[in-house]
């Protein structure tokens, strides 16, 4: 048993087999070249010699005087080697080969240590230990193994994997590439990889761009492109292109991984289409549900079927079941009436440039904007519900979509319908809600001539289902609303009737009363006025005569009022005269001054002077003002104040006469009835004063308004245009 742990002894070589050592020493330089270190031990385990090459291997500095084993770390500082790999104990006397490792990570090195016992006869003379650095070899093996795995992976992956030289000429081509593109490896060898790409400019441009990026950045991953197989099948692929560089960083070739998305892309497309459809349906549904009337909902349905954002048919016809007449009747249509109208691109543009919501809301705002011609066509179509062999009735009865193509059918009625609608192909879907048959939507592609696909049909049918529910809901709502409206109408009619009856009763009573009033008033008036006139004709002093004249005039005015309000026998046609208003107002103030003084009311007159002349019916206006003044005096208590004023207004186009008091005022609720006939709050009033006043002012084209604060007073304003409009019209 040898112990190599013993320290190196420089004198030990005396005991060594001199010739062998000499030989070893001779090959030392060669050993260095082969990266092989040699150590020699005597049978006792003492190292008797070691080669210089060990130094190169980084172990055991032979110059060490102490015979210690050193390891040189990369920095060159020697450190005592406590676990020298070459001091491994020999287990027995046999030839041994072991592997030892030093360092970690990138610095990890592998050594193969072979111990060879050398005998002289039966006697063990020397141990020779060969140390070989196998790091590189192991790496190569590892690499070879990795490459093998890589190759295996490449051969078994579903992706097409190929390599090219720096000119993009194909060098390797895996199994999947063969399957994907249909070419064998030989067929594509040295051929440009660009031949595999689609020739469309988009793809070519994109691949050129990808190459540029790869040259700059080394790799481009998962870029979607179109490639073409040997049979000319277009492949929707994602490519990963990587530059292969040599140690000098020069591009020596490329690797290309191609993943075929054709199948996935197809699935993706159909899925997104489905999602799109569903979203659209929901959108359309929402729009349809927003509709408030039957007309709106019908229109929304048809626009949804035809608009770009909707189902994209070029025309749609709506047939509605008329239960009363037992027919399926054409109701509304959207789109061109016939091939000639197709040329009107304006409409098409209109639909394209707007969202569904916009189109529908725009259309509902301009009600007459339906497609008149096509609607006229559809309205001529009325199919009896019992005509069971008619395609639309069948569609409704069986609740099944019906697709008509002229070339494929012997169905005479269906062909006839195609003729009526000027079309070659159409689809009909039923509008049914629970057991209620509502109608049928017919759609076609007259404009685009795009064939109607099964997808179109199922999509339209899905839409029809939703539309049906919206329509059914609406008709239910309509029914209810209709009933409510009927009831409300009945109520309001009853109410009106009641009011009218009350009014008539009141008016009848009032008419009678008015007649009596007229009679009662007229007799004393006649007496007063008659005597005054009679006296005036006598020889009397002028002062008395003037007074009698006032009496007479006032009586005549009163008679005029009676005539005007209560009688028709001798209608007075008061004349419009151009006059000055202020003298009239002065006269009224004088007339009522005594009454005011008796009631301890201060009366003030504020007249703007000068005022332009005004065209009016003197008596009538006088009556209005007197009425207002009397009311004011009546409403004002002792110590109060009544002001009569005139003023130019409306930029000099009108005169305002105001009568203001500090009286009791008028409640808001009374204020609005102020102008009603026979409305009065006074115990002795007829309630006609303000009503007549308003009529008179209206006749003048003027305005009379009242403002009041209860407890503070009231202000009446009469606004009279200088030239009454009524008059002008009459003149014209």
């Amino acid at each position, binding site marked *: 048993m040898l112990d190599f742990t013993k320290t190196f002894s420089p004198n030990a070589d005396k005991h060594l087999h001199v010739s062998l050592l000499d030989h070893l020493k001779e090959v030392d330089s060669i050993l260095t070249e082969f990266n092989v270190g040699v150590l020699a031990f005597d049978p006792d385990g003492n190292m008797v010699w070691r080669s210089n090459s060990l130094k190169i291997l980084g172990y055991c500095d032979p110059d060490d005087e102490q015979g210690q084993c050193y390891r040189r770390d990369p920095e060159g500082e020697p450190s005592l080697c406590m676990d020298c790999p070459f001091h491994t104990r020999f287990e027995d006397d046999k030839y041994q080969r072991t592997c030892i490792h030093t360092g970690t990570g990138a610095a990890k090195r592998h050594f193969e240590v072979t111990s060879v016992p050398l005998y002289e006869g039966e006697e063990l003379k020397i141990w020779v230990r060969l140390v070989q650095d196998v790091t590189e070899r192991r790496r190569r093996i590892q690499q070879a193994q990795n490459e093998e795995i890589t190759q295996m992976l490449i051969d078994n992956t579903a992706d097409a994997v190929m390599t090219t030289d720096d000119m993009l000429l194909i060098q390797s081509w895996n199994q999947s590439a063969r399957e994907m593109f249909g070419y064998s490896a030989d067929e594509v060898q040295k051929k440009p990889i660009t031949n595999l790409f689609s020739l469309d400019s988009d793809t070519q441009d994109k691949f050129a761009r990808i190459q540029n990026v790869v040259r700059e950045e080394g790799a481009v991953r998962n870029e979607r492109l179109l490639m073409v197989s040997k049979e000319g099948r277009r492949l929707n692929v994602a490519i990963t292109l990587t530059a292969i560089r040599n140690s000098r960083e020069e591009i020596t070739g490329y690797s290309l991984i191609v993943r075929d998305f054709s199948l996935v892309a197809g699935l993706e497309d159909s899925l997104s289409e489905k999602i799109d459809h569903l979203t659209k349906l929901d959108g359309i549904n929402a729009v349809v549900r927003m509709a408030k009337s039957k007309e709106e909902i019908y229109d929304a349905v048809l626009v949804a079927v035809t608009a770009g954002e909707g189902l994209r048919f070029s025309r749609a016809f709506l047939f509605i079941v008329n239960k009363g007449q037992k027919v399926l009747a054409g109701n509304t249509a959207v789109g061109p009436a016939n091939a000639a109208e197709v040329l009107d691109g304006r409409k098409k543009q209109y639909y394209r440039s707007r969202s569904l919501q916009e189109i529908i809301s725009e259309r509902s705002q301009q009600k007459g904007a339906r497609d008149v011609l096509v609607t006229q066509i559809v309205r001529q179509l009325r199919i009896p519900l019992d005509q069971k062999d008619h395609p639309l009735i069948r569609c409704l009865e069986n609740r099944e979509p019906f697709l008509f193509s002229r070339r494929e059918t012997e169905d005479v009625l269906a062909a006839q319908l195609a003729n009526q609608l000027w079309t070659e192909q159409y689809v009909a879907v039923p509008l049914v809600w629970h057991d209620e048959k509502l109608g049928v939507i017919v759609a076609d592609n007259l404009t685009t001539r795009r064939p109607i696909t099964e997808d179109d049909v199922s999509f339209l049918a899905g839409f029809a289902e939703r539309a049906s529910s919206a329509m059914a809901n609406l008709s239910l709502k309509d029914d209810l609303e209709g009933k409510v409206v009927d009831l409300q109408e009945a109520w309001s009619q009853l109410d009106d009737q009641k009011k009218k009856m009350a009014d008539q009763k009141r008016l009848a009573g009032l008419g009678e009363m008015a*007649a009596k009033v*007229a*009679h*009662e008033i*007229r*007799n*004393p*008036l*006649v*007496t*007063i*006025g*008659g*005597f*005054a*006139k*009679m006296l005036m*004709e006598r020889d009397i002093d002028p002062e008395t005569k003037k007074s009698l004249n006032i009496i*007479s005039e006032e*009586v*005549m005015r009163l*008679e005029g009022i009676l*005539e005007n309000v*209560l*009688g*028709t*026998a*001798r209608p007075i046609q008061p004349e419009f005269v151009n006059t000055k208003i202020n003298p009239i107002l002065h006269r009224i103030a004088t007339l009522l001054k005594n009454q005011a003084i008796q009631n301890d009311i201060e009366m003030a007159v504020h007249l703007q002077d000068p005022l332009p002349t005004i065209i009016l019916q003197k008596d009538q206006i006088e009556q209005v003002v007197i009425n207002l003044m009397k009311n004011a005096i009546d409403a004002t208590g002792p110590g109060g104040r009544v002001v009569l004023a005139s003023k130019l207004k409306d930029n000099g186009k009108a005169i305002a006469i105001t009568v203001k008091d500090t009286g009791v005022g008028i409640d808001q609720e009374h204020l609005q009835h102020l102008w009603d006939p026979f409305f009065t709050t006074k115990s002795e009033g007829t309630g006609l004063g303000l009503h007549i006043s308003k009529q008179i002012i209206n006749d003048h084209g003027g305005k009379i308004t009242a403002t009041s604060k209860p407890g503070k007073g009231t202000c009446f304003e009469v606004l009279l245009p200088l030239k009454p409009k009524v008059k002008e019209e009459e003149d014209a």
Partner: protein
Amino acid sequence: MPEKKKLLIVDDEPNIRELYKEVFQSEGYEVVLASTGPEAIKLVKSEEPDLAIMDIRMPGMDGVDAMHEILSQNNRLPVIINSAYTHYKENYMSWAADAYIVKSADMTELKKTVAELLAKPR
């Protein structure tokens, strides 16, 4: 000098009667007054007036009835209906009155009508 024409004034209002008496006397007529229908009928017999001016709504007997009674005795007597009511005017022809004049302080029309009716040959 022709004989003074005699007017019968029928009205329940004393002030009206007084006014008319004054007015028509000053116009040169002889005036007899009645305050009720029956009174008027009596006076037509006793006084033989040339013309009657009648109110139509009076207590006791309606002026129209009274007028019919009078006319049944003397269908040549001109009768003027003189009322405060304006709305009966359309009916006066059917009542066989010669005129219908609404009462007014301005008696010009009434005076004119009286003169005209009296001037008409009977």
